[in-house]
């Protein structure tokens, strides 16, 4: 007798999935991610460590050579740091005189990138720090070059970061030189678009774009990128610019999460 391969129950499950996805609000299904993401945490961390070791061992010779020059650089930077500290204290005193709010340097939690977005549609990262390390949803994430995104999901030992180049990302920003503000949105190709700039606004190629500090997520004044091209939008009402982020999303290995409590206020 020929055994027939009946997919009826499986098809039912498939149809049920479609109904669930389209009818239940996405945040109600987030618990599934919180259960499953930790399953991948260990293998992803292991693979990241092994690949890091493979890259680092051949560089040992160069690392030793660089050690001495870096030591000299460190001494010089210590001297610079002392000078900066003097300026900071002076600035604090002057701000008190002007009765403005003190703007603290934010505190960071360092994290390693252990995974990246597997699909072709979105831009995200998985980092090896989570709720147990004090991370929360909406915390800004950056590298020393600039802002890269914000945390959108947190599990006890890992978190997911939505990149600023993702199409779902929106940040209120300022052009650093002219203080023109606008909305920066991701367009999904590793770059962003600065929208809704008035036609008469003063923007030039190479201008730096920084966070405006509005919206309560990103602190004010953090570098995002530089303007690469400018064009007038269809209809001729607004200008828009393509902004190339200063942080290199492809080579990301370590990131800094700005602790929520240390985010300085934008208002004076």
């Amino acid at each position, binding site marked *: 007798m020929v055994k027939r391969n009946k*997919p009826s129950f*499986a098809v039912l499950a498939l149809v049920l999935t479609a109904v669930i996805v389209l009818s239940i609000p996405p945040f109600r299904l987030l618990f*599934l991610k919180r259960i499953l993401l930790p399953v991948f945490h260990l293998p992803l961390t292991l693979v990241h460590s092994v690949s890091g070791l493979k890259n680092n061992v051949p560089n040992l010779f160069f690392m030793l050579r660089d050690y001495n020059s870096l030591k000299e650089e460190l001494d010089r930077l210590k001297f610079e740091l002392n000078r900066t500290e003097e300026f900071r204290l002076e600035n604090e005193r002057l701000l008190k005189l002007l009765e403005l709010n003190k703007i603290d340097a934010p505190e960071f939690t360092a994290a390693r990138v252990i995974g990246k977005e*597997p699909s*072709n549609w979105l831009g995200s990262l998985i980092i090896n720090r989570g709720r147990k390390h004090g991370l929360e949803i909406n915390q800004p994430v950056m590298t020393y070059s600039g802002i890269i995104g914000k945390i959108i999901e947190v599990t006890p030992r890992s978190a997911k970061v939505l990149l600023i180049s993702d199409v779902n990302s929106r940040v209120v920003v300022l052009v650093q030189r002219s203080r023109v503000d606008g909305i920066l949105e991701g*367009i999904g*190709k590793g770059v962003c678009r600065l929208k809704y700039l008035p036609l008469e606004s003063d923007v030039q190629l190479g201008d730096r774009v920084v966070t405006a500090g509005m919206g309560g997520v990103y602190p004010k004044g953090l570098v995002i990128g530089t303007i690469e091209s400018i064009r007038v939008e269809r209809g001729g009402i607004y200008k828009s610019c393509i902004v190339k982020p200063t942080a290199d999303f*492809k080579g990301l290995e370590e990131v800094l999460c700005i602790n929520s409590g240390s985010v300085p206020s934008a208002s004076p």
Partner: protein
Amino acid sequence: MYKLRFRSFRFSLIVLAALIVQASFPDRLSLMGVKPDLILLLVIFYAVHQGSRAGIICGMLLGLAVDSLSAGIVGVNVFCYGMVGLLSGMFKDRVYAGNLFAKIILAVTGTLLAMTMYYLIAGQIHRLPSPGRAVSIVLIAALYTTIVNLLLFDFIERKVVARITTI
């Protein structure tokens, strides 16, 4: 005479490796900013060897794994991969190692179907790239995934499917 035996444990290891590669080194795999969908290839592979019902289950499980690693919402890939599993399973016993044409058709249609369905469903819930950019992503991904399928299908088949001689 011989019969085929599917080595599920070996296949599970390959799935785990593919998930880790897809989530750990996507930039190294990408061509013009587009990655091949290794997980989808494994769903197709499993379905053409095990049939529609197993294909749906495999597709749904792997879709859930991809959804959990992705920033997108849970369930869309469960459905899309499940559908590809269902349709690929209909070709059970019709695709064999030497059939180049079937492997190309399965990979192209599977990728086009999964990515188009994802775009149409997830696009109702959150933002996705513009339609023009989406078309280029889908076409490059389909082409790239097909090339990877041609390179990997026979290799995986040799590792996973054993021919047992019967009297």
